């Protein structure tokens, strides 16, 4: 797998892969895709893709508000940065 592709998918995945790790990761991905390639040999023409083990349909929830929920304090308790009930991040530039 080319380094450029690894760089691209690492960025799409938002993982800051250091240049020094690129070659090693590319090699590992190569061996994983060699394993994955075995599947390509299976004839699958006309086979309906299976998305899910259950042949069920999506249940629907009545449009009602919940009676109780964790407090906002509890929901924000693990936030790396929060103030005034907001999660804070470095400035979002549009």
């Amino acid at each position, binding site marked *: 797998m080319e380094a450029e*592709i*690894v760089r691209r*998918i*690492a*960025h*799409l*995945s*938002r*993982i*800051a*892969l*250091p240049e020094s790790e690129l070659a090693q*990761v590319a090699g*590992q*991905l190569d*061996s*994983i*895709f*060699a*394993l*994955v*390639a*075995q*599947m*390509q*040999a*299976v004839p*699958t023409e006309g*086979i*309906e*893709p*299976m*998305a*899910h*083990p*259950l042949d*069920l349909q*999506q*249940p629907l*929830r009545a449009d009602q508000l919940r009676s109780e929920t*964790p407090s906002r304090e*509890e*929901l*924000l*308790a*693990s*936030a*790396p*940065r929060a103030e005034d009930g907001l*999660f804070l*991040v*470095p*400035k*979002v*530039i549009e």
Partner: protein
Amino acid sequence: MGIPLAHKDIFCTRGLRTTCGSKMLSNFVSPYDATVVRRLQEAGTVSLGKLNMDEFAMGSSNETSYFGPVRNPWNLGCVPGGSSGGSAAAVAARLIPAATGTDTGGSIRQPAAFCGITGLKPTYGRVSRYGMIAFASSLDQGGPMARSAADCALLMDAMAGHDPLDSTSHPQGGGRFSAALGRSLQGLRVGVPAEFFGAGLDPEVAQTVETAIQWFAAQGAEIHPVHLPHNAHAVSTYYVLAPAEASSNLSRFDGVRYTHRSAAAKDLQELYLQSRYEGFGAEVRRRILVGTYVLSAGYYDAYYRKAQQVRALIREDFRRAFAEVDVIMGPTTPTPAFALGAKSADPVSMYLADIYTIAVNLAGIPALSLPCGFSKEGLPIGLQIMGDYFADELLLGVAAAYQRDTDWHRRAPAWEEQ
């Protein structure tokens, strides 16, 4: 019940840290309980704490945990299996009578086999996934790990059942599992797939498992050869589908609301890039990259869609087999527990440790692992029993019958002497 147990650290527990074995969640205190946690608590069990695991359940040796590896109580130089390695080791070491686990590609059954305990991966949809941190949503299923099938059944009585908070929860998921244990094996049709006894299977494991199957024959079960021709492609199919779902499921761990946030991040892009690099271990990062790749533009059909088609064929294999037999038996793992570090340098060799367990998750059927003997080195060997959809009760009954007559499951490791 008053039974003490502990939860795999993949289940959210209100007010307690829930880390999923990751630096990413090393400071996450869940504001809510997983449905499984709540149901077991309501049934009167007492939770003693949380159990180590492979990071985000990605691993077969419990070596990917940010908090360090778990050791196998039968041999402290060996892995306990994974990803529910902490659960298996704690039950095997007699620290707790039972634990919860989760199984995406074998993560209950493989550590159960390596540690000499009993573990059930239920039919997909019988145990709620709400509050169980998702690895691969269409494959993940929580289940019990305990010393015996009877104890697993007791846990299932409480754990299983429809959950309106999980859209994939089966409306008829519940059951009286502990009431279905006293069954006769007379006339039970047991399928044995040749594909599970081929190259790569340790001869000791093969012989031990065959001996166990003979025991069932002696009790009046009929042994039939069955074929699962697509099992050979289960691992490669799984390593498309599971990473694809995982790459998306793990996007929420972004440094914003409750995860590790890199101190080095100067802007928003760095916050994402650095926090996710620092917060995830190497195996998790690898699987995210694989998943991102197979879903990306131009590759979806060749990988993701193709894998879904092969998945359908794997399910079809089981459907055909279960038209002729009630259960399928074979080894849970190709070898007994391996040494710590033996496979950690080569991801693919680690992946192949799950060669007999993965097809079950792809199909969504139930399967159970129970101890059926030991290797010459004194390591446990697991027998895997697979069933059709909703055959969970049958599997527990068949395993309980075996355990009434054998004592493999009663053997305990003398780990304190090691």
